[in-house]
């Protein structure tokens, strides 16, 4: 009686453990979402100005806030008049800490810069078009000017900004458009290479090759998917990059093209396996009916087999893109990582995963750069999630 009870209890206990394990993947996905957003969320409630630094203007300046991009524009001297950014007509005078000796003598500033606060205050008061970029501690009490706060980073700026300079002075620029476009360019380039090639191999394996050849080829193609991405990257770096450089006579061989070729090779096994599986589900009766009507095997393939398995082929293509978008190491090693808007395949580009991989190690934890990289991770996560849902949708349609 007692023994039976314990046995039952034991069974229930094990069942509980198994049930809990069953939920592990769901829990993992949820945790990943929670932690990525937790780390990245703060980005949109702070400004990009360097820590402990402050921007100040003359009291008469009508601006009350300034956009991050405009700060960059002013300090790059692309914006030279306050009118350009909605102020009154007055040319902008930039004063950094290192510019102070041109306005004051050493004696005025003091031996150990002990008079720097009043000097800064006086300077701000006397120049109507001044913009001052100095450490916070120098503009404390009795400051005769106006501190110009920077606007928080907005979603639009973040997603549509064309500049990614996370460590620029005076403020960082977090525009991820070039990174998104870089990722998409490289991935679509990869799929342009991998899809025709992969489909050809899938057709050959599914319909043309006899079973002996097929049995020999399939494991080899699976091996291709087992090679670590860092090996692909290394191979690309030492073989493909110099090759592209000499063929196209470029200053550097690290280009979007190199990334696309390597990613294309890496996406091949996925595309081949899924497309071949889809083609093999074509009912034999349909193929035989086609052959009986006098069609050749080739006609049967492109009139019957391919239309029948088109959703599987689509799923293969989408999954291939998904693989390419998320790939990190190989891309990091061969694309050159220049964060500029891509124009041709023969220039360096920078993808989202490569950006995270290259920069997270250097960004201090909790800092604005760190947060921006986590938001990039969220963007990448959402992109691949959409792709996965797309695949699920396409393959659920096939079953019906």
């Amino acid at each position, binding site marked *: 009686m007692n023994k039976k009870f314990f*046995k039952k209890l*034991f*069974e229930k206990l*094990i*069942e509980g453990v*198994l*049930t809990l*394990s069953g*939920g592990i*993947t*769901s829990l*993992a*996905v949820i*945790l*990943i979402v929670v*932690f*990525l957003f*937790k*780390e990245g969320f703060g980005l949109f409630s702070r400004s990009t100005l360097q820590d402990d630094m402050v921007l100040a203007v003359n009291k008469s300046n009508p601006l009350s806030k300034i956009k991050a991009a405009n700060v960059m524009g002013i300090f790059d001297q692309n914006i030279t008049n306050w009118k350009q950014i909605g102020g009154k007509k007055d040319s902008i005078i930039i004063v950094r800490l290192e510019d102070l000796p041109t306005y004051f003598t050493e004696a005025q500033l003091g031996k150990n810069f002990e008079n720097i606060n009043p000097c800064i205050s006086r300077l701000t008061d006397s120049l109507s078009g001044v913009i001052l970029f100095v450490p916070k501690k120098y503009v404390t009490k009795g400051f005769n000017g106006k501190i110009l706060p920077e606007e928080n980073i907005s979603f639009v700026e973040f997603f549509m900004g064309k500049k990614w300079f996370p460590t620029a002075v005076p403020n960082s620029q977090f525009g991820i458009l070039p990174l998104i476009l870089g990722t998409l360019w490289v991935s679509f380039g990869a799929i342009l290479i991998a899809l025709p090639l992969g489909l050809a*191999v899938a*057709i*050959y394996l599914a319909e*043309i*090759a006899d079973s002996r050849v097929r049995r020999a080829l399939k494991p*080899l*193609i699976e*091996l*291709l998917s*087992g*090679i*670590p*991405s*860092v*090996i692909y*990257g*290394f191979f690309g770096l*030492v073989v493909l990059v110099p090759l592209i450089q000499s063929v196209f006579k470029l200053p550097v061989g690290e280009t979007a093209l190199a990334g696309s070729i390597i990613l294309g*090779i890496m996406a*091949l096994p996925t595309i081949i396996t899924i497309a071949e599986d889809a083609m093999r589900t074509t009912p034999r009766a349909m193929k035989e009916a086609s052959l009986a009507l006098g069609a*050749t*095997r*080739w*006609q049967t393939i492109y009139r019957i087999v391919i239309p029948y398995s088109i959703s599987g082929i689509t799923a293969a293509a989408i999954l291939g893109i998904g693989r390419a*978008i*998320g790939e*990190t*190491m190989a891309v990091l*090693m061969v694309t050159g990582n220049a964060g500029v808007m891509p124009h041709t395949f023969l220039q360096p580009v920078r993808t989202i995963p490569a950006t*995270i991989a290259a920069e*997270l*190690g250097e960004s201090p*934890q909790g800092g604005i750069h760190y947060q921006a*990289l*986590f938001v990039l991770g969220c963007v*990448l*996560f959402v992109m*691949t*999630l959409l792709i*996965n849902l797309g695949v*699920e949708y396409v393959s659920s349609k096939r079953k019906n």
Partner: protein
Amino acid sequence: MTIHLEKKIERKKRRSEQFAFGLFRALSLFVVGILFVILGFIVMKGFSSLSWGFITQWPSDNMTKGGIFPAILGTCYLIIGSVIFSFPIGVFAAIYMNEYAKKGPLVRFIRMMTNNLAGIPSIVFGLFGISLFVNTLKFGDSLLAGSLTLGLLTLPVIIRTTEEALKAVDNSFRHGSYALGATKLQTIRRVVLPISYPNIITGLILSIGRVSGETAPILFIVAYFTTKLPTSIYDQVMALPYHLYVLATSGTDIEKQRPIAYGTALVLIMMVLIINLSANALRRYFSNKVKMN
């Protein structure tokens, strides 16, 4: 006249078929050729660096001389650590989904989540690992944090292969066991698992192959260089794929590092290939055995 025309069309059809088939055959050979070019290149370049000392010595002279022993050892530790975590949980999850859960929206949801987890880019796992294991749970840049991150990455592989293995067990085995009065747990332990374990082990080996080559998830956790072997799970380790990345892209003298990089690539590729080939061989061996019975 019509016969002549028909013949002409027929010939045209044949010719386009021959052309298409020839093209596909050539492209297939080309793809396999890529594999052999990559493998051949690494083997040719790396072979001369390979020696007993290379795999048993420490890097020296700023990584321009010496071996890669700590990186190999670190990767082995990471494999063991991640498997200890992911294998039991993955197998349990698969048993739950295939044997206990009622077919319905819940199982579909879990399966969808598993697929989603499998589709998440490895660099995102890296971010997650940093955020949860390194910062929140305060494991630091340690073997433990790296193992857990990699274990999470391989969970979907283990769950999927185990599920396939369990599904392949014919229901008549289960019914027979129940008929003899066995409980559900007894049936799973004594009947289902023994039949399906070769395929489960195959899945395990495949996931080991994956772990040994992954770089991105542990990019921020593993060490650039350590001076001593790890003595606890809170120590930092080196890893073979990351070491290759470091040798290939950074360091004091990239040209002098090249031979060592080739050698490292060769060791890594051999490791992964041996693991994958043994999984294949195991699968084939057991499927033949099942057929014979």
